[in-house]
């Protein structure tokens, strides 16, 4: 049957070429589209995670929903001692975040001031590598402030300038101090750069009465794919009902959800092309079998079953699909691989979409063999579906009726 199918595909050149070309085009389009979609989403997530958010973060229950000083983690050391025993954790650190007003003589701005452990933060986030001017914090930086470049611009501050901070301490009392801008950073995230500044925890803890307390503990994993598994391990290990340990999927729920919606719209757009191509392949298949009804009648008369006829059509479409995908898949894979290493750069896109958290002008593709696998699976499935109607059409004729068909 396979031999017959092969001969048929060579004989009916018009149909074969059209089907193969359309399958080739749809395979390339499908793989590249999904790769671009996944690549841009992955890059957005990675950039966001790299800047500041941890793969896992531990909070006191209620801190994220209600907030306030009574929801601070009260014994950081007890938790971090346990975290130190988990192999899959690369680094961890506690942060104390508060919001206050930063003012100089003429300007003031609301800002998030966070007390961080500089040594640990170097491994955890990209804060250090975002340094623009001055030098990154260390344990002895005292009242040195590491300020977002857009915030510094807003306050018209330069390195060495002093700025007054007014906020409230962890016990609810009034907290005020004079900080000195020692360095500025630029992560590329406009919102972050225009609102965040950092100070060494040891100094900040004194001001905020926050020793051994923290807003949360942030964790970096050796492999981010293990987030769920490590999170379960952390929950078991800390064994404290008042705490919650959350993975990046929950921490960045809105971003993950918006990417899902974007992906859904992407798939809908793509399905338009797929539906049209499916119809054309089916029409060509239909035209082809319509012209061969007599032939099918003869085949049935000499003893071939309906199953054999189906197999014949199946092999024909299989041969054409294999031929097209064998050519298209390596080309598409190479393009994806190339652009995953050398992303497409659209100058100005980050600036244009800064409100949307886009921090890079680069749009990388995603090179993932599993994705290629299911993309090809869809193409094969569509092509197989395209023979169903032609097959039903042939079967609507009895063997003798078919032999007399004009």
């Amino acid at each position: 049957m396979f031999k017959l199918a092969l001969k048929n595909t060579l004989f009916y050149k018009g149909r074969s070429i059209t089907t193969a070309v359309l399958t080739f085009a749809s395979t390339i389009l499908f793989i590249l589209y999904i790769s671009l979609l996944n690549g841009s989403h992955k890059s957005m997530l990675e950039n966001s995670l790299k800047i500041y958010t941890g793969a896992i973060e531990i909070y006191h229950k209620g801190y994220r929903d209600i907030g306030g000083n009574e929801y601070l983690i009260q014994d950081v050391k007890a938790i971090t001692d346990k975290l130190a025993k988990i192999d899959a954790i690369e680094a961890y650190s506690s942060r104390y975040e508060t919001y206050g007003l930063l003012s100089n003589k003429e300007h003031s701005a609301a800002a998030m001031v966070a007390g961080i452990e500089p040594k640990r933060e170097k491994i955890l986030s990209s804060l250090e590598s975002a340094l623009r001017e001055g030098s990154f914090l260390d344990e002895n930086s005292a009242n040195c402030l590491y300020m977002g470049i857009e915030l510094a611009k807003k306050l018209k501050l330069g390195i060495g300038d002093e700025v007054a901070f007014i906020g409230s301490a962890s016990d609810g009392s009034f907290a005020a101090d004079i900080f000195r801008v020692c360095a500025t950073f630029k992560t590329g995230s406009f919102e972050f750069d225009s609102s965040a500044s950092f100070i060494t925890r040891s100094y900040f803890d004194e001001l905020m009465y926050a020793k051994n307390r923290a807003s949360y503990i942030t964790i970096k994993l050796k492999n981010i794919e293990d987030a769920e598994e490590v999170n379960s391990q952390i929950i078991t290990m800390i064994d404290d009902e008042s705490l919650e340990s959350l993975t990046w999927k929950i921490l960045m729920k809105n971003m993950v959800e918006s990417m899902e919606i974007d992906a859904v719209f992407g798939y809908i757009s793509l399905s338009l092309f797929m539906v049209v191509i499916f119809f054309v392949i089916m029409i060509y298949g239909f035209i082809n079998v319509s012209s061969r009804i007599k032939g099918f009648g003869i085949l049935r008369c000499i003893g071939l079953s309906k199953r054999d006829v189906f197999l014949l059509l199946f092999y024909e479409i299989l041969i054409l699909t294999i031929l097209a995908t064998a050519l298209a898949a390596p080309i598409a894979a190479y393009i994806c691989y190339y652009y995953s290493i050398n992303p497409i750069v659209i100058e100005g896109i980050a600036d244009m979409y800064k409100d949307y958290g886009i921090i890079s002008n680069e749009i990388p593709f995603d090179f993932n063999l599993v994705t290629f696998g299911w993309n090809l699976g869809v193409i094969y499935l569509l092509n197989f579906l395209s023979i169903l109607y032609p097959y039903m059409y042939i079967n609507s004729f009895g063997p003798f009726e078919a032999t007399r068909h004009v």
Partner: protein
Amino acid sequence: MYKLILKLAWKNSFLRRVRTLLVIIMIAVSMSMMLVLEGVYDGLVKNMVDKNKRSQSGDISIFAKEYRVSRDLANRIKNADEIKAQLQSTKGVEAVVLRVKADGLLSTARKSSFASLIGIDLKEEERFGKFSEFLKEGVIDFQKQGAIVGIELAKTLKLRIGSKVVFSTQDIKGEINSIALHVRAIVQTTNIGLDKGAIFIDINQAHKFLGTTSQDAMQIAIRGEDRELYGKLKRAFPNLDVKEFLELQPMMKMMQDVMIIFNSVTFLIVMGVVFIGIFGVMYVSILERVREFGIMISLGMPYRYIRAQIFLESIVVGLLGYLAGAVLGAILLIYLERYGIDLSAFSDALEMWGYEAVIYATIKVSYFTTTFGAIITASLLSVIIPLSRIKKLNPIEVIKADK
């Protein structure tokens, strides 16, 4: 004669009923899907542009020269009331509002966040952009130190109607000043900046709090779609920063451009594939009737009549597909324009990016006219090659060969 040709074309179009029907379904399904996609994407952008204009930028905005570089109280327009009066008497200006703005810290007893205080006149904003239509919760009202907050800011600070908040910032003298307010309403403007960080209060209260006067404003927003208005205002106020909507919202311009490119590329690809589909069917349909055409030519029928008949056949198929697609597309678009696509399950994510949870489509006549042109063109082009083969026919040989 042409009546006969038309009759022949109609009958021949349905000679192979299933095949013709498949092409019609293919055109109808792809066309209706394309129309829906165009309508939904255009609707998304149109909605954002419209609400951005109404809530913030207007068609044109005027600022003090340095304000957009440094959002300082010092960089304010100091004779805003005079300019407003002048603008109101300018031809082409439909509405004008003054706004007072200051960035600062908004705090509840438990949480704080960055926010922009915006002093507005509710009555004027209603005329300007139907401000009340942005209401999500509560009552649009500034009574008793009332304030209206953006939906994302409300989520960040866990604000509800009646929540007490304190806004702190530097006033015009450089002193840190605070004002206690009650949340009266939560609004969703789909302007990401406003939804994430705006707290609206009465403009007179804002003046009092910041130490500015009723002659001051940080922004004068203007509605007016007269194309010459922008140039006129730029010339009239050379010492001020006059910007039109797309200059203030370059992202919107980019979104519009991206949508046009996306829709055009989609259109070309889909029509290209549709062309291949029609071509396949017409090609086979014509070539399997070569003998008939040979007989017709032998009987003395001029080639131009055969050509007309074949063109008519392809037009009949294309037109029927177009009509089915147009009706299906129009029904879907009307439904989506009225009821939209409800994505409430993802409302948090959508609102975070400035989109509404229900996305409404828009309908443009151009969707139908351009598709009509494309399908008819594709239908006509699809018979060019088979026609050239018919033209080369030697009728006697064809009749003999097919015997």
